[in-house]
């Protein structure tokens, strides 16, 4: 190979790739408005992004898969956890994660900052990420949930337990959150009525309960209670 050929390889390689990259960048700018619902980027959302940055959340949590790998990804936190949970975990991490293996720092956010943060997460939740992350994908159901769904033919309570987000805080057979107690043997402590009453009004049953009262029809609460009452630690 002559030096001349080598130079041509350099110039053609660099220029062709740069032109392709810059052209696609221009086009990405055109399309990203729609893909991210930029029309819904309100001042509250932007204020929320600033809160997110001010407290350096992104060096523990990833968002869109980028950042620190120490804590859960927040891309779909709004639909995964809901407003109530976000508000509680941000304002009282020392309580919510008291039993957790990993802790979250108390950052003393004002209620207004938390509102902005929630607006930000709500907006991020709707970004078209080509169905990422896979565990939050509505199109592909993880096999753990599939097993539960299969069980749903026998028990609608199991399916409702999954669908109502109970797994966010509670674990069954080692699957689920650690914020609330694991429920593998809840049937030994409470009967169907006791569980249903607890679900419908946690604070009445236990004044120190962190659990939000889920917005469930009577029949769903009954089905979940029947399912849970059968959990008697026999695993």
């Amino acid at each position, binding site marked *: 190979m002559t*030096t001349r050929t080598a130079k041509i390889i350099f110039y053609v390689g660099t220029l062709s790739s740069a032109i392709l990259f810059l052209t696609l960048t221009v086009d990405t700018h055109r399309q990203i408005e729609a893909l991210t619902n930029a029309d819904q980027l309100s001042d509250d959302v932007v204020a929320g992004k600033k809160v997110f940055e001010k407290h350096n959340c992104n060096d523990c949590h990833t968002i869109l898969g980028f950042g620190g790998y120490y804590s859960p990804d927040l891309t779909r936190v709004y639909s995964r956890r809901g407003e109530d949970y976000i508000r509680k975990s941000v304002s009282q991490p020392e309580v919510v994660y008291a039993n957790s293996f990993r802790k979250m*720092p108390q950052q003393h956010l004002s209620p207004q900052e938390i509102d902005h943060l929630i607006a930000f997460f709500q907006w991020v939740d709707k970004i078209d990420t*080509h169905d990422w992350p896979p565990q939050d994908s509505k199109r592909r159901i993880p096999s753990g949930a599939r097993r539960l769904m299969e069980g749903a033919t026998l028990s609608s309570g199991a399916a409702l337990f999954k669908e109502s987000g109970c797994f966010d805080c509670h674990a069954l057979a080692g699957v689920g959150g650690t914020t609330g107690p694991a429920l593998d043997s809840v049937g030994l402590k409470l009967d169907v009525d006791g569980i249903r009453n607890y679900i419908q009004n946690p604070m009445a049953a236990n004044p120190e309960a962190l659990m939000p009262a889920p917005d469930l029809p009577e029949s769903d609460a009954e089905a979940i209670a029947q399912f849970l009452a059968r959990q008697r630690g026999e695993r």
Partner: protein
Amino acid sequence: MITYQSQRVAYPYFVIALLLFGLQVVMGIWLAINYSFTLPQGLVDVFPFATARAFHTNLLVLWMLLGFMGGTYFMVPEETRSELFSTKLAYLQLILLVGAGVAALVGFLFGWTQGRPLLEIPFELDLVVVVGALIFLFNVAMTMIKAKNWTMIQGTLLGGLIMLALLYLFGIPFYRNLSIDWYYWWWVIHLWVEGAWELVTSAIMAWILIQITGVPRQTVEKWLYVEIGLFMFTGLAGTGHHYYWLGAPRYWLWVGGIFSALEPLPILFMLWDTFKHVRERQKPITNPLVWTLAVGLAIYHFIGAGLWGFIHTLPQINYYTHGSQVTVSHGHMAFFGAYALLNLTMFYYAFPRLKGIDRFKQNLGTWGFWITGIAMFLMGLAFGVAGVLQSYLERVLGLGYMTTHLQMQLWFKIVIVCGLFFLAGVIIIIYDLLRMRPAEAKTA
């Protein structure tokens, strides 16, 4: 045995870079402890993982950039056959950059941050960095322009440094849209490590190879054109592998997938190139360690950046591994393989010359190289196993994040052990470099 007095400015750059490297590794071990054990809430409140991570990554960037800058100041006088334009400016630049770095680290402790990973340093300090970088570019460019001895290596080096500085600017503004924010974040991070930094690496390696092997400049420079041509071709459009899931159009899956599948090629080429020049050497080997490092760099660069990058940039795989410990594994192996070893190669080439030593004692440094190299490789594997576990349990099976992390504990504990060995290796290297002795000197 330096030819030009102004080459001496490189020394303080190297020393500070080495010390920051040590501190970076200590912080890394602390991060692994955070992963492996439950820390008390009171400690987490005042020194959270996020702050420690900002330390770890910013120290990485700072020591590597100082190393590159010192390396540039060391090689440019010999390459241009002239003294540096100004040594005063070089010292001023060092003070500004180290000052900004220290201010940033102290600031992080008190929550003074821009809050964007790797680009945490606040706007005010960004300005100081920009001034420092401009002084650097001005000093290097003026030296080259005044000397009028242009070479291909100088062009590549200057091009890489200008690209590096320009790209930094994209990380400074506040972006309202999170997706656009990350789009340009990668212009800094990806286009640095897979663009500008590769140009700088190629130039420095080409120069060192000419110096130690005596292979004719024409041959080295010819292959350098091909090498950087391939780096630019694959690296620029290869940025697309970061755009798969951030809200950008779907065609990035194709562009990113194809171009990043080609990204190992230039590194493989560099490996072949290094072996070829080493085989065709026309000079005797004075310091075997420098050769070991140069070849080690080429091999490790290929494994860490090339292979490890390749295995998880395919969109079908990246869908499950994106943002998991697989990324961490690749990050560690690539930064060590490509840029830590490049800096160490430069240090071991330059230190004896700066200290007027012809042949230095090779023992400790060789131990240091093998300990750090093996420890980092095992650490990369441990992160990798943790990452595969995480991808499967969390992303495929849909288990909760913390449930998954509890299953990964063993591997984080292995990381701590590897980290301690790595730290030992780094301490040996720092000690060996700072107290370098001639091989023939007899102890009394």
